[in-house]
Structures are given as C-alpha cells and as structure tokens.
C-alpha cells in the first residue's frame, strides 16, 4: 500500500533529529520542564504509529519513499510491516518515558541539554533503522546508532572507564557495521534490488545463491556484534558506564535488539537452511547460558541486568534460528515482554541508585517502605521476567517452550536452564533491595520524583495489561510481527490461561520450581561462579585491551620502520622504487632497447661529452669545497655547450647564466659553512649507494634509448613551426612558445621565481631574531651508543 496519506512517516523519521537540534536550547530556556516537553515528540510518533495498527494487522504493509540518488539505487524509503511496527512502537513508547526519566535522573547535570540531544538523536537513528526499506539507508541508520551509542556511553567523559567502554562499543559494533555493509551490498548484488520489501519477495533466490555463505556470515557479523552474542558480548556490560536512562533504553530495550531485528528481518530469505538452524541456536544458546551465569555472579544491580540482557538476546537469537513458526512467535512475544520488563527494571535500578546512593545489592535492603511505588513496579516487572502469570512474560515463556519442544530437546534444556537463572536474577533485583530489614544506605532513601517512577510504573502496567488483553495484543501486534518474521501468514490465538496441560505448562512449572530452589541458594551459586570465572582469569574483555594495545604497538613499530626520521633512508627508498619501476618492466617484458653499434659523434662533440664526464667525476671525488664548486661549474658549462651544438642557443645562453650564478652563490654560502669536505660514508655504504646510483643511471639511460628508438611524432612541433610567424608574429620559435603559446605557463614560472626570492629573503631576514626554541630535555642529544646514529 503506497499512498500520499502516509507521507507523515517522513516527518516521524526526521522528528527526533529535529527535536535533538532544539533540545539544548529548550533545556536552557525551560529547565526541568524541557524533559516533559521533549517527551511529546516520541509520544506523537507513537500515536502516529498506533494509527497504522489496523492496516498492518490486516496484512497491508505500508511503504513510502522518494528517490534520493537514483543513479546508485539509493532511495529514502520506509517500509512498515508487523515487524517494524512493533519495534517502532517500542522505540517511541519506551522512548517517551526515557526522556521524562532522563529529565529527573540527570537533574542539575551541567550537560543535561546535550544529553537530551544525544538520546533523541539515538531515537531517530533507531527508529530509522527499523523503518528503513532501502538497504543503504538501513546501513546508514545502523551506523548512526553505533555513533550515538558511543556518545551516550562516553557521556561522562571525564572518567576513564566511560571512555574505554564507549570506544569498545564503537569498535565492536562499528566492525559489525562494516560487515553488514558488505552483507547488504552482496544481497543487493544477488537480488538486483536495494529495497528490503523487494528482497523479501525473492523467495529462495538468496538461499540458493552461490553467495549465500558470505551473505550469511556478513549479516551475522553485523547482528552478533550489535546484539552482543558470545564471545562478542563483553561490550554490553561495560556499556553500563553510561547514565541509567541510556542503559535502560539503548542497552536493553532497543539498540541491542537491532541485531535481533536484522536476523528477524532476513529470516524469510536467509533462514530455514541447515547453516542458519545450526549456527544461530548454537551461538544463541551459549550466549543465553553464559549471560545468565555471569549475571548471577554480579552484585551491581545494573550489571546483573546487563548480563541478563545478553542472555535474553541469546535466547532471541536461538529462537529466531529455529525457523519454527511457534518458536518465532515465542521470540516475538519474548522480545516484546523483555523490552517492557527490562526497561522498567533498569529504570528501577536507576531510581534505587539515585535515591539510595548505591547499586550494590549487598548494601541495599528494606527500601519497600521508603519507595513503595518503585517497589511495586519492580515486582511486576520481575514477575514478568521470571515468567510467572499473569504477566506477558509468562505467555512468552509458554509459547517459546511450546515451539522449542517441536524443535529440539537440547534447546529446551538450554532454555529452561537460562530461564531458571533469569528467574533468580529477576527476583534478586526486585526483592533484595526492598525486602528485609532496613539497611543504612549512603543517601537517605525516599521515593523519587514522578519523572523517575512514571516510566517503571507505566511499563509495569503495560506488562500486566497486554497480558490481560492478550487477545488484542496477539492480533494487533504479535501475530503480524510473527508473520513478517516467519515470512508467511500465521494464525493462532494467545491465551493467558493455558488451554490444556502440555509440555509448555510442565516446563514452566519445572522452571518455577528450580528457580525458587536456586533463589534460596543464590549466595552459594554466586561465589561458586565467581571462583570459576576467577580461575579462568582471561576473558574477551581483557582480550579487547590486549588487542588494542597490540594494534597501537604494532602501528607504532610500523611507523618507526617506515619513518625512521633519516633523510637518506627516505631518499634511498624513493630512488630504489623509481629504479625498480624503470628497470623491472623492461626486463620482465623484454622491451630493452637495442644496443647501439657505434658512436657517431664529431670530435668536438665527443670532447665536450668528455669534459662533462670529467666534471661529474671531479664533483664526486672533490676533496675541497672549491674543487667541488668548480667541478659543478664544469659539468654545467659542458651542458650549455651541448645545447649550443644541437641548435638551442637560447638554452645555452640561459644555462651559462644560471650556472655562473649557481657557482657564485654556492661559493658565497659554502665558504661560510664550516663543513667536512669528505664523503663520510663507509666503504660498504658507498658500494651499496653506488650500485643503486649506477642502476638508476642505467634505468634512465635505457629509458631514453627506448624513447629515441620509437618513431617520432612531430605534430606539435609542426604546429609551432607553421604558426609561429603567421599567428604570433615571431621568428624565434622558442621565444614565441615561451611568451605567446605558453604565456600563462611562463607567468607561473615567473611567480615561482618571485616567491622563491621572497622566501629566501624571509629566511635570511629571520636569522638571529626568532631562533628555533628547543627545550633542553626535549632536544634528543645524539647518543653515541645508539646504533641508529651512524658515524
């Protein structure tokens, strides 16, 4: 369905960026009100997308687009089906409360305006990512999320840990972005279209293509880095250095799901193969287990949640990788549920941190009286996370178990194990800080302002209401998205109360039983895992540091090797390469010129050639300055004579003048220099340099010989001969060319001479006035023991 009626989607995609533009100003003008006002932007977009629910759930995808760079197949086009619609609703819906929450959380922060700006920019990037139809556009938005995420993680840029986390996230997700770029280009090459909506109609074309494996790997490279799959998961917990609104929004509810989005988006055209159904469940399953185990180990509220986010992403990848209809429906439900409860729990963790002054679970307790509203929201979210009724998380778990039972019992076991630990962590976060005796906290805790608890409360309420109204949720959101991911229309109703006693219900009961048991021994579990991780001692996080250090050290060493700061090395490199380009092709292709048989010079020509050679030898062998200068003059004058003999009196005249001047200036300067006259090169070095020089001379000589052995094209010369007098009215053709045919060139030449003169004047004049300031310590004294200093 394409219609002008949907042109507002362009505005919706641009609105967050526009809001980001005015956010700092608005913050300065309105102070605390700015957060509430800016939240209206995502809210308006949310309402706009709600209006698409009827059309999309009826199976009508919406596409809008305009040509941007048609020559490259680049369109500004958006495509809204069940998958992008649910994502868009989550991004804008949760985004609304995140902006409000940020208003309260960062109140009084000097850079709050900038923060609004960043987070709105991110919102625009993420929204564009899920809406983009054009593959290039998708890639651009994908990179924008990486960059905005970098800015947000490094928001507190005075702390080293923040900077490191930001750089880490940027490098990992940026590398994935490059991989994705290769992937989308390959997809475009195979399918012949750059529109995702068209690619989705190509059926088996990608799966049966010879390029399937590279496409699969590059798309996975993008998805796995963004969605923090093991062993690339390490950047996500580190990203918790960001302020809590960022963690809640980017690193749980939205951005990290971009990888899952990509997998879900391409599932209809890439999924269903053995490769897909092996690699995805494998990595997803491992990520689920590793994530939950590491989550249990943590004592910091945010880190616990971060690792369960890693685990949840693993679960989603695993479910998407089954390519099974019911499992995918489970994935969709779980994704929806996870965004709600994890967003809420992160905001709760932020509230507790903000009000009590610590996030360490061991230093928290008994806050239920001080913070009842927060406690309520946390409890609801944790029940959903644990997969207990009557929350949407329960339905998600039922459906995903039902789907996995059909696929593989191994995956069922992995999922149950993961969910048990998720249950433990969920309740640890929700119960531990609030129950038990009141513990003394760094700050005197009390309920935060409405901006802080509004988000958790609304998301908690959504967790409950979408479950109670699951019939509507299923028809309006879940089934359309499942159809988009599965690639075919799907049916099936969702029920809050299980309709029959099946494996799913039994597995849920097992999960709950084991979860309760594990919760009672969580402290033992924690110390066990802690011991295990300490015993391993090395992880990808440390590996990242080693990688960065190695890269910098390697680059430093390479730079030192290529740029040792020694002129003769640079010159030798340049000369050797020049000689190689001259000689090697001639030798390799056998195009050496034919050797002359005799020398047809007159005796006076031969004499002058000899004088020139003598001059050169004398320069090379000169033992005193004066001899060197005079010898230089000899070869110069000999050249002037050669010009004279071969019909170039103008050249000869100029050469005489220039050589005379050179000798005079050189004599003036050299007599002021107290320099060593002898060549200081050791014999070995002389031999090497001499060989290179002789090879170079031979190269140029052979080049010249080759040139003179091909037929000569006199076209230009004939032109100048013919028109010198008739057009330019001059009888000396050389002069006519200089001042007339190539007059502008001569003007350039004069300019060069003038500028050189000025530069020389400047060099002479600054003498003694502005000495080059060298701080004694910095001036590297030539160290006699340093092997790099030769003689």
């Amino acid at each position: 369905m394409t219609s002008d009626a949907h042109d507002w989607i362009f505005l919706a995609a641009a609105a967050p960026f526009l809001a980001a533009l005015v956010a700092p100003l608005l913050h300065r003008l309105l102070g605390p009100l700015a957060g509430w006002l800016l939240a209206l932007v995502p809210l308006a977009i949310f309402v706009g997308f709600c209006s698409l629910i009827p059309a999309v759930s009826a199976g009508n995808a919406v596409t809008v687009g305009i040509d941007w760079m048609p020559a490259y197949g680049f369109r500004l086009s958006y495509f809204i089906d069940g998958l992008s619609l649910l994502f868009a609703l989550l991004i804008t819906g949760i985004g609304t409360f995140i902006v409000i929450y940020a208003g309260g959380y960062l109140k009084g922060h000097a850079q709050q305006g900038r923060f609004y700006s960043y987070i709105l920019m991110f919102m625009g990037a993420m929204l564009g990512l899920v809406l983009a139809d054009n593959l290039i556009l998708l890639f651009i938005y994908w990179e924008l999320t990486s960059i905005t995420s970098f800015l947000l993680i490094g928001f507190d840029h005075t702390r080293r840990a923040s900077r490191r986390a930001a750089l880490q996230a940027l490098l990992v997700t940026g590398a994935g972005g490059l991989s994705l770029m290769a992937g989308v280009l390959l997809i475009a090459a195979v399918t012949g279209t750059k529109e995702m909506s068209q690619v989705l109609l190509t059926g088996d074309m990608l799966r049966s293509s010879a390029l399937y494996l590279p496409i699969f790997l590059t798309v996975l490279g993008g998805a796995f880095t963004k969605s923090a799959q093991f062993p690339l998961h390490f950047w996500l917990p580190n990203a918790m250095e960001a302020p809590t609104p960022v963690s809640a929004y980017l690193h749980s509810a939205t951005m990290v799901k971009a990888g899952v989005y990509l997998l879900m988006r391409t599932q209809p055209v890439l999924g269903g193969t053995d490769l897909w159904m092996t690699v995805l469940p494998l990595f997803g399953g491992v990520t689920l287990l590793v994530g939950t185990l590491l989550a249990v180990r943590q004592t910091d509220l945010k880190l616990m949640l971060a690792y369960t986010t890693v685990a949840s992403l693993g679960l989603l990848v695993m479910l998407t990788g089954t390519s099974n209809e019911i499992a995918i429906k489970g994935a969709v439900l779980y994704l929806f549920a996870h965004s709600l409860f994890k967003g809420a729990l992160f905001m709760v963790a932020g509230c507790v941190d903000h009000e009590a002054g610590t996030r360490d679970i061991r230093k928290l307790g008994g806050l239920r009286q001080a913070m009842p509203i927060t406690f309520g929201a946390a409890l609801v979210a944790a029940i959903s996370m644990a997969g207990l009724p009557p929350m949407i998380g329960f339905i998600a778990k039922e459906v995903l178990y039902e789907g996995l039972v059909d696929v593989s019992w191994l995956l069922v076991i992995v999922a149950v194990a993961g969910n048990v630990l998720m249950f433990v962590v969920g309740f640890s976060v929700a119960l531990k800080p609030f129950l038990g005796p009141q513990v003394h906290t760094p700050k005197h805790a009390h309920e935060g302002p409405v901006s802080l608890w509004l988000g958790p409360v609304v998301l908690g309420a959504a967790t409950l209401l979408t479950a109670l109204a699951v019939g509507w949720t299923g028809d309006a959101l879940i089934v359309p998205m499942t159809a988009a991911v599965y690639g075919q229309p799907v049916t099936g109703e969702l029920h809050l109360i299980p309709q029959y006693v099946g494996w799913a219900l039994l597995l849920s009961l097992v999960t709950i039983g084991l979860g309760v048991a594990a919760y009672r021994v969580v402290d033992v579990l924690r110390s066990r895992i802690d011991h295990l991780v300490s015993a391993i001692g090395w992880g990808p996080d440390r590996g990242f540091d080693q990688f960065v250090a190695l890269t910098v050290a390697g680059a430093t060493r390479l730079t030192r090797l290529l740029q040792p700061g020694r002129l003769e090395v640079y010159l030798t490199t340049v000369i050797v390469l020049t000689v190689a380009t001259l000689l090697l092709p001639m030798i390799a292709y056998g195009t050496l010129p034919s050797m002359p048989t005799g020398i047809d010079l007159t005796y006076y020509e031969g004499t002058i050639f000899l004088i020139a050679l003598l001059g050169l030898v004398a320069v090379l062998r000169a033992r005193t300055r004066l001899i060197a200068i005079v010898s230089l003059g000899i070869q110069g004058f000999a050249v002037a004579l050669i010009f004279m003999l071969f019909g170039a009196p103008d050249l000869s005249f100029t050469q005489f003048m220039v050589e005379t001047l050179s000798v005079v200036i050189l004599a003036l300067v050299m007599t002021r220099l107290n320099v060593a006259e002898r060549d200081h090169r050791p014999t070995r070095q002389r031999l090497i340099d001499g060989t290179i020089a002789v090879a170079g001379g031979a190269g140029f000589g052979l080049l010249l010989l080759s040139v003179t052995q091909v037929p000569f094209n006199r076209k230009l010369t004939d032109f100048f001969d013919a028109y010198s007098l008739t057009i330019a009215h001059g009888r000396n053709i050389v002069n006519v060319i200089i001042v007339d045919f190539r007059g502008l060139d001569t003007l350039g030449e004069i300019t060069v001479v003038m500028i050189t003169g000025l530069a020389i004047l400047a060099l002479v004049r600054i003498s003694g006035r502005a000495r080059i300031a060298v701080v004694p310590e910095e001036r590297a004294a030539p160290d006699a023991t340093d092997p790099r200093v030769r003689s």
Partner: protein
Amino acid sequence: MEAAIAGLVAAFFAASLYLMMSKQIIRILLGVAILGNAVNLLLFTCGRLTREVPPIIAGDAMVPDGVTANALPQALILTAIVISFSFFAFLLVLAFRAYQELGTDDTDQMRIAEPLGEAGPPTGY
C-alpha cells in the same frame, strides 16, 4: 648520436643519485643541481637531436626553411632551467640557515621534528 647522449644522461643521473643518498646537505645539494641538468638533457634528447640549426624563421620566409631543431622541448627546458635554479637557490639558503640554527650539516643529526627514542602514542583510553 642519441645513443651517446643517452650514455651521458645515464652518467648524470648516476652521479646525481649517488650524491643525493649522502647524509651531508651540501652533497645532496650538489646532487640536486646535477639532477636538474640530467633531466633537461633527457627532455632535450627525447625531442630528437638536430645539429647546429636553431628553430628560427629566416627573414624572408613564413615557416622554417628545411630541418631545424625541435623548438618544443627547448621551450620546456627553458622554463625548467629557471625553475630548477630557483629551487636550488632556495634549498641552498635553507641548508645554510639550518646549519646556522642546528650547527650541523648531517641530516641524521637534525632531529627537532623527529627526536630519537620518541615515545609512541598513548596506549590508554
């Protein structure tokens, strides 16, 4: 004729390259001066050689009479001579001033911009 001058050009290039690979600024400068001549001779010969007849149109003719030397490379070289002389003069003064400031004519000892044992870029974050 061309073969002989090709040999001479080879000698010019060899001498110039050998001098330029030295560490002493003065020898490098001598090399640069010779390089200018080498390149000019190369260009000159590429335009083919004609003995003793300059490209000048006689007083009663509209075009050159008979075979004359090739005017085009001469015009190019005329520009090149002047430019290379400017270049040489500038380098000479630069070398002189560098010697005054740094007290050495050895390029290896001119190390203000690239000190020995310079620390690498920071490895932290």
